[in-house]
């Protein structure tokens, strides 16, 4: 009995730890001191320090005592791979938290921010570990609904509220699609268990229909074209740290699950989903890039560019070989570092000056040389220019895509890299250009955002050049 209990604790270690962090935060909230007039004492700084330390511990704990096994009638699994994926998400969340310091320091609801944030992370963990459609659905919902509240976290801004509204409508719609698909699946197969589905697949039209519904639901979450309409407005309306979280962590988790589901569960319908993914990849890359070129607002630009990046990821996913799964995971790590570095700089600038337009960044190099270099390196990485890790990520995605023999897709991807280069360089160019009348003043970074940016920078440089990271992921997938 005790063995079983220990197993239970170890297998659900990441989830339980996260839950513990949430409860500690909740407890701190309840016991917070109040002023004489009933308003809470302003102790944002200490809350933020505590939160970041807890998240750091949580991240470090992810490396120890990882065991493999199943729980709850095999509907929950924990393997080295899921532990690794959870670590990645933990790291990403820590980085987002570090970067939101500047913004949250003056915010009235810091505690709620963390509770909502970690609740979504918990949902993602459940999703990654799920071996059953219903648990997967549960995790998905848990990771989405609190996010809508987070999008609305600039409480005074109308735009923020509008974005949250859009987001909740869209996710409700996609959840409905997913549920519909799941129920039809159950009708055709009599099981929703991931391990039993492959045997029950027969490639009938109804199952194909279900598969399309499933991919559409995924498509909404990762904002693949044509399911991307919510993305730009939500990214623009949301506070920058939430945008980072949405574009990197939330998407990353869904892509992890999508890879597992398509590669392992629906391998039997590979021919069908291969075509769908190819079409999605091309549409997503092209649309994302074309819209990104025209944007003047940095957040909107990065929103569209993140759509384009998803297109690239889909190119790798279409590879249908081990390299496909490995390169997707590898790219997500790199994408976390690169996008968080870029958004981290933007977040600080936006929180302190409110400036978000590309033209505002003219002369940024003169006043903030360090931040400028970080932004430039991050953007080069996003554009996929060697020797930044972004290139390695994209290269392996292209290699995986080409491994399936589809060179047209690879050439389209390469052409899209050129287009994306244009708008990323447009930002770098503005940064290194002569100053306009009112340049962004010199910014003194607080410790936490500085640490966050530094970790991202190291990640961008090291992840690509150190080949061990790629080999490690490859081993994880090979051991499955």
């Amino acid at each position, binding site marked *: 009995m005790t063995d079983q209990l220990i197993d239970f604790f170890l297998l659900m270690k990441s989830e339980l730890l996260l839950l513990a962090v949430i409860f500690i935060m909740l407890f701190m909230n309840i016991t917070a001191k109040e002023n004489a007039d009933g308003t809470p004492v302003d102790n944002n700084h200490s809350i933020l320090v505590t939160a970041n330390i807890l998240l750091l511990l949580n991240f470090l704990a992810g490396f120890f005592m990882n065991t493999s096994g199943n729980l709850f009638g095999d509907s929950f699994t924990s393997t080295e791979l899921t532990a690794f994926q959870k670590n990645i998400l933990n790291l990403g969340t820590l980085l987002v938290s570090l970067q939101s310091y500047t913004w949250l320091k003056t915010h009235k609801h810091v505690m709620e921010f963390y509770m909502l944030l970690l609740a979504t992370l918990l949902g993602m963990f459940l999703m990654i570990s799920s071996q059953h459609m219903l648990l997967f659905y549960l995790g998905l919902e848990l990771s989405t609904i609190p996010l809508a509240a987070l999008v609305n976290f600039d409480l005074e801004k109308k735009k923020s509220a509008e974005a949250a509204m859009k987001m909740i409508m869209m996710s409700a719609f996609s959840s409905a699609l997913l549920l519909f698909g799941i129920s039809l699946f159950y009708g055709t197969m009599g099981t929703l268990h991931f391990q039993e589905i492959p045997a029950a697949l027969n490639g009938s039209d109804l199952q194909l229909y279900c598969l399309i519904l499933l991919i559409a639901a995924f498509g909404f979450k990762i904002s693949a074209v044509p399911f991307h309409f919510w993305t730009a407005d939500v990214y623009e309306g949301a506070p920058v740290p939430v945008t980072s979280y949405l574009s990197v962590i939330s998407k990353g988790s869904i892509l992890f699950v999508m890879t597992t589901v398509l590669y392992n569960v629906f391998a039997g319908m590979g021919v069908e989903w291969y075509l769908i993914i190819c079409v999605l990849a091309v549409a997503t890359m092209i649309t994302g890039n074309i819209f990104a070129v025209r944007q003047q607002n940095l957040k909107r630009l990065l929103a569209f560019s993140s759509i384009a990046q998803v297109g690239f990821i889909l190119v790798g996913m279409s590879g249908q070989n081990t390299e496909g799964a490995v390169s997707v995971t590898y790219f997500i790590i790199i994408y976390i570092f690169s996008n968080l570095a870029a958004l981290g700089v933007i977040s600080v600038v936006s929180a302190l000056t409110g400036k978000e337009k590309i033209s505002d960044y003219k002369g940024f190099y003169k006043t903030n040389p360090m931040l400028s270099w970080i932004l430039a390196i991050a953007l080069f990485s996003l554009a996929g220019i060697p020797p930044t890790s972004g290139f390695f990520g994209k*290269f392996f995605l*292209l*290699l995986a895509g*080409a491994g399936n023999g589809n*060179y047209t897709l690879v050439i389209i991807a*390469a052409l899209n890299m050129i287009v994306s280069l244009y708008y990323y360089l447009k930002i770098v160019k503005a940064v*290194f*250009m002569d100053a306009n009348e009112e340049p962004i003043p010199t910014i003194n970074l607080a410790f936490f955002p500085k640490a966050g940016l530094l970790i991202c920078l190291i990640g961008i440089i090291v992840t690509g050049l150190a080949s061990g990271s*790629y*080999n490690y992921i490859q081993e994880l997938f090979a051991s499955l």
Partner: protein
Amino acid sequence: MLSLLMILLPLVGMLLIRMVSDKKSAARVALLLSFLPLAATIWHATMFDPNGGMQFVFDKWWVESMGISFKVGMDGLSLLMVLLTNVLVPIIIFSTFDRDIVDFKNFYSLIFLMQFALVGVFTSLDGFLFYIFWELALLPIWFICLLWGGADRIRITLKFFIYTLSGSLFMLVALIYLYLQTPLPHTFSLDSFYDLALTPSQQGWIFWGFFLAFAIKIPIFPLHTWQPDTYTNAPTQGTMLLSGIMLKMGLYGIIRWMVPVIPAGIAEWAWLAMGLSVVGIVYASAMAIAQKDFKRLIAYSSIAHVGLIAAGIFSMNMMGMQGAVFQMLSHGVNAVGLFFIADILIDRYGNREMKDMGGIAHVSSPFAITFTIILLGSVALPLTNGFVGEFMLLNGVFQYSGWLALFAGLTVIFGAVYMLRAYQRIMLGEAGEASKSFRALTSNEKILLYIIVALVIVNGVYPKPLLDIAGPSLSAILAKAGVVSM
């Protein structure tokens, strides 16, 4: 192991130079640091055996599961290109003495980073590694042009960057294709590319992938449109790096990665590549004649010269190859010399218009003499370095087609026309007000010009050592392409 050290030395320079805070000593320290890679290269050269094939090989897995290795090594061709790089970089750094460079730490760091990338390109023997270095070279030069360039730099550098990177992406696709053709487990190593049995039509496609990347870098007509603007607007040292070394990357790439790997592809398309090169020679020469701006004139003359080199390579015979390699070295030296002269003129006159100059020969005779010799090297007078390469190149092109050689030969005549006219306008005639107050050359400037003059003459009079180094490795490359050399 040794070669790895030589490649990494510029990075050491890049880090160390950041610790110097005084501008004057920074230039000296940078020069000193740039001697380290040069010394290492010379040391390698003394140990080098021309008939020994690929030497100083360092081979270590990088991403083993994907067949990517960190493999570098040098044969005669690589050695010469590395030598060119590591000789020119000290000269380029020396040219910043007596000039006021703002933000000098970043400036020297970027030059060292550039050197690192260039040496990497010339030594890598793995397709992936080659691509990394190839792209890495673009970043520092872009920043040099962006941060220290002329008035119109914003638009021009953007065009330059996107243009060159777009070409490279096609090469990336070609490399991925080659990789997937290698037997399992796939690998990017150049040796495995040699063993591929590719059909002519496959080779034709790969040819275009590589050709676009290399032709834009070189540049070959009509893909040259980024070049004159970029050369004119870049700071002098940036232009020297671009014309002296960076465009050799494209020419080197053709010899190393195209000739032995896809000979049938070249055989199929050589007529077009050579045709374009020759059209480029005539066009660029004509454009050079019409220029009023001296720096722009050198830029166009550079297109004409490299066009001839490219034509020589695509003629796929020993004479053309030898000439190409020799001319790559000579052009590097001459271009750096000419751009330094342009820099002196800009420093003295504050603009680049030739009509504002004139009569300098009456004022400064050391300048007149050195300018004359470098200029003669550029127009390929016998006994200068330019003559050896150009003669062999024309010979090589002639073996391919007499008509092409006839048009390519126009470069000699045109070259004399625009260069001598430029000389006439700048140096001869009545000395105007501006020229009368022409500030005498500083001793640093004199030393630099004398070094270049020495290189021009020594290589012109006695080219044999350089030709001997390159010869065996070039015939090995041609043998892989199925061409038996004399």
